[in-house]
């Protein structure tokens, strides 16, 4: 579903100041192609702020973000929130709304919306009111809504928090499908199992800084940073 042009996102010297708190501090990161990145870190480490800043919802107070070598981000990225807001209308209509906003109209809009719902396993509840779906279904609908926009990179902020294991497993399957379709995935999580299975690389954040970026198997075997090692041992650094 994603564009054939490989996406490249580069953050250089990224900093975000929230009042007296330095939420992000001098972040240098580059993602190229259909990556699978899991952001790990303790609460307040800056995972959500980083995702929002990369997505363009928050303005960096320092540094810059470049997409595919250009300074201005295209609408080639989408984001799924920890608690997605669904409109008071049917599941299908929620996806169609997102497409309509982005200029997709008529038969193509309906087809893409139904296709996205089918891909996340929600075709059977297409006409159900979105807000009456279960937590897991709502999260899958949010992914379908984002995926229907055919983003080149999808950000997910703690997509499985507050979900029971079967619902979380279903989200994990859907994330895998999105990635298999060629979309780069960057997600934050506290679920180490999800990070291990769905992430090819781990970016570990500590107090707004990147403590390390390591291939997943290496990270869980022998993390390079003492902060990550403490985190994995259950001691919040």
């Amino acid at each position: 579903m994603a564009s054939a042009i490989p996406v490249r996102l580069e953050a250089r010297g990224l900093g975000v100041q929230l009042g007296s708190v330095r939420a992000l501090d001098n972040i240098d990161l580059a993602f190229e192609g259909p990556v699978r990145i899991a952001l790990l870190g303790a609460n307040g480490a800056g995972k959500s702020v980083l995702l929002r800043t990369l997505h363009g919802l928050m303005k960096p107070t320092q540094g810059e973000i470049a997409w595919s070598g250009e300074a201005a981000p295209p609408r080639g990225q989408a984001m799924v929130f920890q608690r997605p807001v669904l409109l008071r209308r049917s599941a299908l209509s929620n996806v169609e709304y997102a497409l309509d906003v982005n200029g997709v109209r008529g038969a193509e809009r309906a087809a893409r919306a139904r296709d996205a719902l089918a891909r996340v396993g929600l075709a059977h509840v297409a006409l159900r009111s979105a807000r009456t779906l279960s937590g897991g279904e709502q999260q899958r609908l949010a992914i379908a809504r984002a995926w229907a926009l055919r983003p080149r990179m999808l950000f997910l902020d703690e997509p499985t928090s507050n979900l029971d294991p079967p619902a979380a497993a279903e989200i994990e399957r859907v994330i895998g499908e999105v990635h298999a379709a060629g979309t780069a995935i960057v997600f934050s999580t506290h679920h180490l199992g999800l990070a291990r299975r769905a992430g090819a690389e781990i970016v570990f954040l500590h107090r707004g800084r990147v403590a390390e970026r390591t291939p997943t198997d290496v990270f869980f075997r022998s993390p390079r940073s003492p902060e990550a090692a403490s985190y994995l041992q259950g001691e919040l650094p």
Partner: protein
Amino acid sequence: MWDIAASFRLAFGLITGADPELWRIVSLSLEVSVASALIACAIGLPLGALVAVKPLPGRRALVVAMNALFGLPSVVVGLVVYLLLSRAGPLGSLGILFTPPAIVIAQTLLVLPIVAALARQFVEDAWQEYREQLTSLGVSAVRAVPTLLWDLRYSLLTVVLAGLGRSASEVGAVMIVGGNIDGVTRVMTTAIALKTAEGDLPLALALGIVLLAMVLLLNAAAYAVREWSVKHHG
């Protein structure tokens, strides 16, 4: 005490007996109140929502003005509309003073700030929840206005009802611009005021009962719609 009880009996007699004068007044009241509430909602709901979501220049002053107009004295509105529509006024050529359209204009001006201020508050509260998600989808502030109004439609029923209630209960401005002319501009509130002053308590009471019943019915319907919406739309 006997007089009051007898007046109530006569009032119910007027209602159940389909007294033509009573129902003519009720009918005109409904027409002008619903018309003014609809016009005020058509303007006030999007206006309030726009102020809630769009960072307009002078927004704070606008919010203060909207809230201040909430308590606009109705006789002042009546006076202003009277001056505008009177023969020597800038809109005198329309020739609508002491007609139902003049009442609609005055009531709309009274209801509009209420609807706009309440809608702004509702939408601003919701915007805290929706903003990040809608912005993420590429929704502009202007596009967010109809989206939010539609998504909050069941909650905003309260605002519409508040507008309709304010419109239907208005006396001062209606008296000034309508003139309380029998069969032309006499609505329930002005008729109640007049009939009470004249000592015609049965008709005044009958109109009061109908007015109360309408308000109760509308609120019951709104409550039922909200209950249904929670069950079916979450």
